[in-house]
């Protein structure tokens, strides 16, 4: 069977996910509108129960968070009442920010899967790989989510405004010399225009690569294949620049005082491994439904090798970023990790276990890379780990220590998971599952390690 039919069961499942997710997101927004008095009450209760280390530490946290938020208001806090009011307002903001951030993290995570997959697809064409052409249609299916996914991220960023991006608040910028210095880059119109340029570039490559790939199926010569090669090479150049800038804009700028020069690479590693993992998962799913009979455990082995290798690459970049900042201990840099280690200890270190130790130990053995359920299990842990990675990049700047993985977060993940499944599997039905015109298809079918 070369043509995929979107089963009603799976379609129903994706709709259920979207509905439950939407309810969760709605609930998150409904419950986040707490008034000043409610937050004040909440804080006194927490202080009485000894939650979060009491008020003294919470107040100290407020000062730290103000530094990271660039709220250098410049007036002495000799008045205890003012300090109290400011702290309550700060917590109130964090509670308001939470559903927005939860939505944004989930939207970015699923967009990142599609974008990472598109980069992987381009690498396969640019390197003229012989093993992977049997998986091209799966990859093309996944990248179908890129356009809607990326637009959704940009739209959420636009409407969330200073709920996520503190530099979008004019009042804050007016009191902040550092953000003022960056306002040539960090301003809302520029942000949107840049975002649209990135998305347009990615979409164009996705559109034309799909077109050439389809045309190659029926062609008598290799002209489409050659075009695909040239487009892929050019796209990779564009991608590395645009992805890096996208990561500054869409993620790093949530902490506008802080920067890291390898941030683009770091985010890239995360998206690459997530994209590859999803290729493996969808391939295994389709195979279990009786499709993709030309894909065997040798192909799975190679995809799993990439999952293993890029997991280590991610760790390398995560650690490179962490160690230099930790070692030099410069206040304006190290505050980034101090916030994470103080308030996000479990997700911060848990993510290293899930994204590094787990895949390294489980996927090290060559035989295990060829067992589908093993790859699925490891893949799900890797995906969860990279969700937490994005979570750790956004949440500390927007909700501070008011984080939790509750209904707003899970609802957002379900919402976009449903949408992702719906878009990807719809795209898979559009063309045959074998890119039969690819000149490497025979080599790929007979590939064995």
């Amino acid at each position: 069977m070369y043509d995929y039919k979107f089963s009603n069961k799976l379609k129903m499942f994706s709709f259920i996910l979207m509905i439950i997710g939407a309810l969760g997101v709605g609930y998150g927004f409904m419950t986040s509108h707490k008034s000043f008095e409610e937050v004040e009450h909440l804080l006194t209760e927490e202080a009485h129960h000894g939650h979060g280390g009491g008020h003294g530490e919470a107040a100290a946290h407020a000062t730290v968070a103000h530094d990271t938020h660039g709220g250098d208001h410049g007036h002495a806090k000799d008045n205890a009442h003012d300090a109290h009011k400011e702290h309550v307002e700060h917590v109130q903001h964090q509670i308001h920010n939470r559903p927005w951030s939860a939505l944004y993290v989930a939207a970015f995570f699923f967009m990142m899967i599609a974008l990472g997959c598109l980069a992987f697809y381009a690498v396969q064409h640019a390197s003229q790989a012989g093993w992977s052409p049997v998986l091209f249609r799966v990859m093309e299916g996944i990248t179908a989510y890129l356009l809607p996914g990326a637009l959704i991220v940009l739209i959420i960023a636009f409407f969330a405004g200073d709920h996520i991006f503190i530099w979008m608040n004019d009042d804050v910028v007016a009191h902040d010399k550092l953000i003022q210095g960056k306002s040539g880059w960090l301003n809302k119109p520029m942000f949107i225009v840049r975002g649209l340029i990135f998305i347009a570039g990615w979409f164009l490559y996705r559109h034309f690569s799909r077109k050439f790939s389809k045309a190659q199926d029926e062609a008598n010569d290799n002209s489409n294949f050659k075009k695909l090669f040239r487009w892929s090479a050019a796209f990779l150049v564009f991608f590395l620049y645009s992805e890096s800038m996208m990561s500054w804009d869409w993620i790093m700028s949530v902490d506008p005082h802080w920067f890291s020069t390898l941030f683009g690479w770091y985010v890239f590693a995360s998206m690459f491994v997530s994209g590859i993992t999803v290729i493996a998962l969808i391939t295994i799913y389709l195979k279990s439904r009786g499709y993709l009979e030309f894909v065997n455990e040798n192909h799975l082995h190679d995809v799993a090798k990439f999952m293993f290798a890029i997991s280590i690459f991610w760790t390398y970049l995560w650690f490179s970023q962490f160690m230099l900042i930790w070692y030099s201990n410069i206040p304006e840099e190290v505050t980034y990790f101090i916030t994470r280690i103080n308030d996000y200890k479990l997700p911060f270190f848990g993510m290293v276990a899930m994204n590094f130790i787990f895949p390294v130990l489980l996927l090290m053995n060559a035989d295990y890379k060829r067992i589908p359920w093993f790859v699925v299990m490891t893949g799900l842990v890797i995906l969860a780990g990279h969700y937490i990675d994005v979570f750790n990049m956004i949440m500390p700047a927007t909700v501070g220590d008011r984080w939790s993985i509750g209904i707003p977060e899970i609802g957002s993940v379900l919402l976009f998971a449903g949408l992702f499944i719906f878009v990807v599997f719809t795209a898979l039905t559009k063309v045959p599952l074998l890119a039969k015109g690819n000149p490497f298809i025979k080599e790929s079918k007979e590939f064995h390690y």
Partner: protein
Amino acid sequence: MEASKVIHAIYTDDDVLMSAVKKVKAEKHHIEEIYTPFPVHGLDKAMGLQGTRIAICAFLYGLVGLTVAITMMNFIMIKDWPQNIGGKPSFSYLENMPSFVPIMFELTVFFAAHLMVITFYLRSRMWPFKKAENPDPRTTDDHFLMEIAVHGNERELESLLEETGAVEINLVDKEAH
């Protein structure tokens, strides 16, 4: 092992060799060894050789390297002459661990790689100044040699090997190593 008779069948192409191996195996003859000028992909599977266990060794050697690195850095940098690392003197290995990760990584790789090579040499009975076991120097250039044990069935074997495309078939006395 006393001296025994073996047949040396010589081939000039790796594809011909591969199909010959499959035929000889199908006839249930025991292939002692094959000498090739370069690694032939899939030959080990066709010969029915067991998978290598060197990966397990590599993993264990890596653990040894990691242990050596941790013990060494703990003694040098924490115990013997405590160092002030990154302005955070703490006298604790764990708190200074990030700065030791590169060394831990390098020694893991170093031990795994070197000990793996040494293991491979020992397992293959290779050491400096050892006389080569190669029966025919042409196998280092462009010929492939298949060595099959003979148990009074040389006629049958010779005709089979001729069918498989061997360019030369020699019956030789093999000396025990």
